[in-house]
């Protein structure tokens, strides 16, 4: 069975540009999470989808971040416009019950 996949693996963009990250959860998992790790700090929660609905988006840093999960399958996280402090590794996780399975992450560098 395929695990959680994320695309792209790396992205380097300039400040002010837009970037869209994609996450494909494990098939059949209703819960999808986005997390972010900024260099030197712990992994922090961004938001949680249950199917296509946002269950908890309290971790989203500001309105430059937009997450969607149309149809309750894959999810996208758009950052527009990107700022330097958005650099980090963005992880996606999915679960059907309590165990959250993580993808390899997307390393975002904003220059």
């Amino acid at each position, binding site marked *: 069975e395929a*695990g*959680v996949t994320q695309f792209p693996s790396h992205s380097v963009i300039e400040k002010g540009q837009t970037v869209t990250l994609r996450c494909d959860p494990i098939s059949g998992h209703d*819960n999808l*999470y986005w*997390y972010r790790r900024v260099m030197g*700090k*712990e*992994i*922090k*929660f961004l938001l*949680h989808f249950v199917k296509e609905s946002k*269950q*908890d988006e*309290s*971790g989203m840093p500001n309105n430059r971040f937009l997450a969607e999960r149309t149809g309750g399958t894959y999810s996208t996280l758009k950052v527009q416009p990107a700022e330097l402090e958005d650099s980090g590794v963005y*992880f996606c*996780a999915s679960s059907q019950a*309590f*165990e*959250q*399975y*993580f*993808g*390899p*992450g997307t390393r975002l560098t904003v220059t």
Partner: protein
Amino acid sequence: SQELEQSPQSLIVQEGKNLTINCTSSKTLYGLYWYKQKYGEGLIFLMMLQKGGEEKSHEKITAKLDEKKQQSSLHITASQPSHAGIYLCGAGRGSTLGRLYFGRGTQLTVWP
């Protein structure tokens, strides 16, 4: 302030030695997860503990959650180079397990 404190931050051990990593919270933990990460890879799920006093083992790795559910330890017996990586503890809050809070991780190096 950090939700979860992990110690030590880094650990270098010789192959064959035993080691312990700790994860501590000032609040009650609802579900304590241990993950392992290798550079450039995602987090690999190791174990999850829910009940106070619970202990689980997988191969040479044992995780325990204390009775008060505020501290967990991960113990590796007879370490091998394949155990090297970053170990992360994560925990839920409240009665539902949704978002996880993470410690900063413990970097483990095992030299032959």
